[in-house]
């Protein structure tokens, strides 16, 4: 490809030499410095839309969020309290109160309920899809189907699950028709059932995406390694645990951390499923749902402190991703 592109250029040079004109290269050589600088100025110009938008809509709000976290600023009934500068008091309050830890725990539990089956199933499917000896048919159909839930509006999906699993909904109706239960099961009155439903929905929504990412990683592994292992008489299980899994570690870490960052942002599904209450007994209340509450009640001090804590945790996790993927900024 590259070579094919060079040929006309060489022909051109020949033409220039014969006609005694300066070749374009020579031309640029003469005033290279000024031209290049002149062109490279355009790098800044093309970056203006991004930078201006980013500064206005992201950086200024971020700075304002951090700034607000040092102030007492909320409404108590009709009375506005603050803004008064109170230093780190919001942080002290948020970290010493039980709420933060309760909601962080909720978020982690529901994330784990979704993530553990997700990573197991995705590894299994990835290994099957990329196994040449298995020769699975209709791969495109299956990939299309398992990726589908990822594109569904999370709030609509949660609304759907709320109606399907409600006391008089289709799921109870089916279970009763099959005589598995005699009374409607009240899914949203049970802590375990509510959390499992949230985790299950996240699993359904994300395992297709993870499968496709892991598959890409598995296809990047040198095929001769598998062939050599097969010649040596390794079983499919041995190949998976001794070759695929260790070589997949960077991608696994990437999937784990990005999923964790996504998990920290868990909002739409539990918010709509429980109508923002996080019921039963605030057991499905996530950190972002709590932040959303602060934003609605205009408690900017506490909301700010919570945002900054989430920002710090996300930042640390992102650095881990950076280290592992080693994104090259030289190119």
């Amino acid at each position, binding site marked *: 490809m590259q070579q094919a592109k060079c040929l006309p250029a060489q022909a051109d040079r020949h033409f220039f030499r014969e006609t005694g004109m300066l070749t*374009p290269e020579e031309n640029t050589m003469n005033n290279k410095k000024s031209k290049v600088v002149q*062109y*490279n100025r355009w*790098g800044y110009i*093309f*970056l203006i*839309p*991004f930078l201006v*938008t*980013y500064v*206005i*809509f*992201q950086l200024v*709000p*971020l*700075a304002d*969020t951090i*700034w*607000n976290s040092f102030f007492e600023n909320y409404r108590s009934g009709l009375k506005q309290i603050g803004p008064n500068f109170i230093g780190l008091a919001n942080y002290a309050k948020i970290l010493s109160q039980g709420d933060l830890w309760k909601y962080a725990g909720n978020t982690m539990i529901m994330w784990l309920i979704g993530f553990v089956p997700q990573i197991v*199933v995705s590894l299994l499917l990835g290994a099957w899809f990329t196994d040449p000896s*298995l*020769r*699975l048919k209709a791969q*495109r159909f*299956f990939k299309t189907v398992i990726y589908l839930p990822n*594109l*569904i*509006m999370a*709030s*609509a999906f949660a*609304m*759907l699950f709320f*109606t399907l699993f409600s006391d*008089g909904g289709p799921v109870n*109706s*089916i279970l*009763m*028709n099959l005589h598995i239960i005699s009374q409607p099961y009240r899914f949203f009155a049970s802590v375990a059932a509510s959390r499992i439903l949230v985790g299950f929905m996240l699993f359904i929504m994300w395992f*297709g995406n993870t499968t*496709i*990412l892991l*598959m*890409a990683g598995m296809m990047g592994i040198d095929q001769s390694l598998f062939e050599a292992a097969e010649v040596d008489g390794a079983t499919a299980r041995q190949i998976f645990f001794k070759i695929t899994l260790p070589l997949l570690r960077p991608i696994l870490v*990437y999937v784990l951390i*990005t*999923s964790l*960052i996504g998990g*920290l*942002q868990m*909002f*739409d599904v539990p918010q*709509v499923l429980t109508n923002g209450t996080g019921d039963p007994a605030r057991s499905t209340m996530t950190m972002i749902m709590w*932040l959303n509450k*602060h934003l609605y009640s205009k408690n900017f001090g506490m909301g700010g402190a919570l*945002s*900054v804590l989430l920002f710090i945790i*996300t*930042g640390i996790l*992102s650095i881990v991703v*950076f280290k592992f993927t080693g994104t090259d900024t030289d190119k």
Partner: protein
Amino acid sequence: MKIKKENGAGIRARRVVAYVVLILLSFLCLIWFYILFINATRSHAELSRGFTPIPSTYFIKNFQGMQHSTQPIMRGMLNSLIVAATSAVLCTYFSTMTAYAIHAYRFRMRKFLYTFILAVMMIPTQVTALGFIRLMLKMGLMDNFIPLIIPSIAAPATFFYMKQYMDSVLSLSLVEAARIDGAGEFRIFNVIVLPLMKPAIAVQAIFTFVANWNNYFTPSLILKTEKMKTLPVLLAELRSADFLKFDMGIVYMTIAFSIFPVIIVYLILSKQIVGGVTLGGVKE
């Protein structure tokens, strides 16, 4: 010989297991949308009698009921369409431009800015939401589409995807050649670079469109009046209203109405979308 035979049987057994698991998972992915479709075709009275797997005849009735329900669902659809489509256009165009700036030019701040954009890629919108809302209040942009559309110009994840794609398709000699022909930098970008990036732009346009179509967090904070609200906000409202008063057929129709357009588009473009997930390797 014996070993080989066992191996063959083993593969067959594993293949059967793989198919069973795949069919089971496909069932788990699709059953909800099947039930949704069935229920959207049934009347409130039929729905309260329990579930049957056979569609009924109330599809059009429910659709008309939805059009005349207390919530402006059709308007919400239009609002979602406006926000998602304009965001997709702005996001892909300016992300390509940003990627081109980093890709084609060598300026002093280049490396710093590139690293900076990658570093902020993971910052979730939720952690800056507080300052964002306060700023929009001050600028008088509450209950307006601008705060939902304009910020998509600066999308680090889309930029990263475009940059990676550009590394593989755009050689700078092409840009040089255009310069010699006397084309201006802006013209080169619009006439030469953009068409080359078409496949990547298509993939990212779809992803940005879907992400904005589905977005609930920011619109729920920004949009206040009924006729400005997008579909996810209206759906969440439906959840918070007194549920028993509603015609369930219309509720299912409303959910179906917000889910099925995306499914139809996806089925048409599934090849590009599924392929696009791996290309960038960026999970949004």
